C-alpha cells in the first residue's frame, strides 16, 4: 500500500507543477471534491456507517433481547466459530466460489473475445441480448429459474424430461446447488461484464492490432497473445467484484430454501450470509451476526488485496 500511494503522489506532484497557479489548483481540488461528495455521503451512510455499527455491536451482548454494548467481549466471534453450521456454510460457499469465479470469468472473457473478433451488427445485437437479463434482479431470477427448472411448467420441460429430470426435486439437490447458483449468477451478470470487457478491448490501440496483423497473427493468436494480456487489469477487476459478490450469496439459497412455497431439498442455512441472518433473526443474536458479517468482509478484502498484490493492478505505468 505504501508503494502505491507513493506512486500516485508522484503523479499528482507532476500535475501540480504543470497546472500552474495555486488558485486554479484549489479550484480544481474543490471541483473534484464536489463531484465526489454524493458518493462519499452514500458511502458513509450505507457502507462505512453500517460497517462501524457492525463492529460496535459485534462486541455487544444480546442475550436479553436488547444490546448491552461491549458486554460480550469476543464471545460473539467464538459463538460464530463454534456454531455447528459454520463449517458447513463455509464449505458450501467455498465450493461455489471455486466453481463460479473461474467459470464465470472464463466464459465472459471467451464470449467477449469471440464477439470482438468479428465486430458488426451480429456482434452488437448479441451484446445487447446478453445484457438484457441483467434487468432481472436476484429474487425475480430465482422465480424464473424455478419456473424454467420445473419440468411440468417449463417451456423446455421436454428437454429436462428427456435427460431424466421428471420433477423439480430431481434437479434441485444439495449437490447441484452450486451449479444452479452459478447459472443464476451468470445469466444475470454476464451481460454487464461482457460490456465492460468489450469496452476494454475497444480501448486497445489500433496500431498494436495492425502491427499484430502485419506480423502474421490470425484472429485467435491476436486474442490470445495481444488482447488477453492487455485486458488483464479488467479481468482482475472482474475477479475482485465477482468474488466479493459471490461470497455474499444470500437471496438465491434463502428463497430456494423457503419451505412455505417451494418444497425443495435445500438446507435451511446454506451460505455464511444466511447463517448471519439466522443468528440475527432466528436467534436474536445480532452480535454474532455482526461478527460473522465482519469475518465475511475480511475474507473479501483479503482476497482482493492478495489479487492486487499478485497482479500489480494499481501500478501506474509511465
Amino acid at each position, binding site marked *: 500500500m505504501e508503494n502505491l*500511494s507513493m506512486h*500516485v*503522489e508522484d503523479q*499528482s506532484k507532476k500535475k*501540480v507543477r504543470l497546472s500552474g497557479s495555486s488558485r486554479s489548483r484549489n479550484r480544481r*481540488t474543490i471541483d473534484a471534491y464536489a463531484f465526489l461528495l454524493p458518493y462519499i455521503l452514500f458511502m*458513509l451512510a450505507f457502507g*462505512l*456507517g453500517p460497517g*462501524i*455499527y457492525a463492529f*460496535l455491536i459485534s462486541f455487544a451482548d*444480546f*442475550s*436479553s*433481547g*436488547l*444490546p*448491552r*454494548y461491549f458486554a460480550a467481549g469476543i464471545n460473539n466471534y467464538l459463538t460464530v466459530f463454534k*456454531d*455447528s*453450521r459454520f463449517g458447513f456454510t463455509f464449505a458450501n460457499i467455498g465450493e461455489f466460489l471455486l466453481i463460479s469465479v473461474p467459470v464465470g470469468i472464463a466464459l465472459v472473457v471467451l464470449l467477449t473475445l469471440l464477439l470482438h473478433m468479428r465486430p458488426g451488427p451480429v456482434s452488437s445485437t448479441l451484446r445487447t441480448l446478453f445484457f438484457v437479463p441483467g434487468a432481472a434482479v436476484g429474487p425475480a431470477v430465482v422465480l424464473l429459474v424455478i419456473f424454467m427448472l420445473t419440468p*411440468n411448467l417449463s417451456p423446455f420441460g421436454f428437454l429436462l424430461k428427456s435427460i431424466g429430470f421428471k*420433477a423439480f*426435486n*430431481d434437479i434441485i*439437490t*444439495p449437490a447441484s446447488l452450486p451449479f444452479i447458483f452459478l447459472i443464476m449468477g451468470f445469466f444475470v451478470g454476464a451481460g454487464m461484464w461482457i460490456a465492460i470487457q468489450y469496452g476494454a478491448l475497444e480501448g486497445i490501440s489500433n496500431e498494436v492490432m495492425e502491427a499484430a496483423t502485419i506480423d502474421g497473427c490470425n484472429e485467435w493468436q491476436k486474442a490470445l497473445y495481444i488482447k488477453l494480456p492487455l485486458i488483464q487489469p479488467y479481468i482482475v477487476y472482474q475477479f475482485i467484484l465477482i468474488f466479493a459478490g459471490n461470497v455474499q450469496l444470500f437471496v438465491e439459497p434463502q428463497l430456494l*430454501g423457503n*419451505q*412455505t412455497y417451494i*418444497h*425443495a*431439498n*435445500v*438446507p*435451511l442455512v446454506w451460505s455464511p450470509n444466511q447463517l448471519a441472518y*439466522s443468528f*440475527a*433473526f*432466528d*436467534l*436474536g*443474536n*445480532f452480535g454474532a451476526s455482526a461478527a460473522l458479517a465482519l469475518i465475511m468482509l475480511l475474507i473479501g478484502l483479503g482476497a482482493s488485496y492478495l489479487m492486487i498484490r499478485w497482479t500489480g493492478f494499481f501500478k501506474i505505468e509511465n
Partner: protein
Amino acid sequence: MFKQIWKYVWLMVVMSMVLAACATASPAAPAVVTQMVAGTPVVVTATPAATQSPYDDNAPITVWIDQPRQPAIDAFLKANPDKASLIKAVVVDREQFPSKVLLFNNTNQGWPDVVFAEPRLVARVADAAHNFPLDLTGWVPADTINNYSAMSNCTFDGKVFCLRNDLAQFVTYYNAPLMTQFGYTVPTTWEDYQALSDKLAKDHPGYYLGTFGDGWTFLSFFEASNCPTHQLVDTSTLNINVADANCTRAASLVDHMIANKTLYNTDFFNTDFDKLITDNKVLMFEGPAWMWGSFGGTKGNWWETASHQLGVAAPFKWAADPAPVVAAMGGAAWTVSRHTKNPKLAVALITFVTEDKTLWTGSENFPAYKPIQPLWQQAVSSNPLFANDPFPIMQAAADEISPLDNWPRFDLISPLTQFAQDTYQKKLTVTANLPEIPTLFTPLAQAQGYDVVTK
C-alpha cells in the same frame, strides 16, 4: 496531497465512530427498566407484573393479521363502532413475526399490539430474547380460558400467552363414491390402512392413499405415531429419538406404501397431487380439519369434488395404542404484546374474534372456543359437500391432538421437507434415512439453547 485526503477520511471515520457511539450508547443503559410511552421514558418495575403499566384505554392498537382474518376485524369494528378509529389492522407474513419482534426490541418501539399466529410462532417469541407476549391470565377470566380447546399449546410455564383461534387436527378424508365402487371399508387402524394399500395396489394400480413429500406430510404419519422427533421434555430439553419403536413403525408403513406406489411423493398442495384428487385418483388421505374448505371447487378449481363425495372418518390409530394420536397442521391463535398500551381493547378484540357466533357460523376453520362449536356443527353438518356428518369426528379428534404439536423454538417443516426429499433423491428407504433427522434437528435445537437428549 493524497495524504491530506486520507487525513480527512480518517477524521470522518473517527467522527462517525464518536457519533455512532453517542447515538447508540445512550438508550442501552436504561433500556432494561424504561419504557418509552408516548415519547417520554417512563420507569417501570424491572420485573413487570402480568400487566405492564401505564395503560391508556384510548390508545390505538396495531393488529397483525393474514388476509382471511380481515372479515373478523371488520366484524369487530362493526360491533364496536366507537373503537373503529383505534384499530389498525395490517396484513403481514406471520412467518416474519419472530424476526420483526427482534428488530423492534432493538429499536425499543414499533411492536404490534395483537398478532394472529400459530402457537409454534408464539413459542418462538416467548423466549428471553423476544420476550414478546403478555400473560393473559387475569386479563381473560379463567372460566373463559377453560372454554378454549387445546390451550396447552398456548401455555408456557403456567403463563397463557395466546387464545386459540381454530384447531387443525388431522382426520381421514376419503372419496366416498370411489370407496363404494371398489367395495372397500374405511380403515380404522394404520395396520388396516397398510393392508388396504396392498389390496389397492393389486386391484387398482394408479390410485393413491395419500402423499409423503414434505414436513407436513411427514408429521401426518410420524406425529400420529407418537414418534419423538421433537419431543419437549421441559422448556430446555428436547428429546430426539428416531430409533424409538413409534418411529420405526411409521417409517416401515411409509416405506411399504411408497414401494407399492399407493403414496404420492409431494406435499398436499402440489399441483400434481391436486390434479390426482380432482381426477378421482386419490382414495383417501389424512388431512387437517380445515382442509375440507379446499374441496368441492370452492376455491377456484381446487380439488374439485361432487356433492356428497367427501367422506370424513376418524384419524387412524395404531392397533397397539389405546386411542388415536392426532397430528395437527396449523391451528392458529391470537397473542397480545406485553408492550401494548391498551391491553383492554386488545383483549376485547381477541375474545370477540374467537368467540363471535355470526363470525364462526359457516367458517371452514374448526373453532377452538367450545361454546360456539354447536353452531359451527349446524353449518358443516348440512353442507352438501360431505358424505357424512364430519363434526363428531372432528370434535373427537380435537381432544386427541398429540403433545408433539407443542413445537420447539425452531421450524420443523423445512428440515423435514429436506429429509423427505433427500430420502427420495438418495433412493433410500425412510427407515434407512431416519438417522438424518437428528443430524438436521440437533444443530437447530442447540442453537436455540436446548439440551438434546435421546431417550
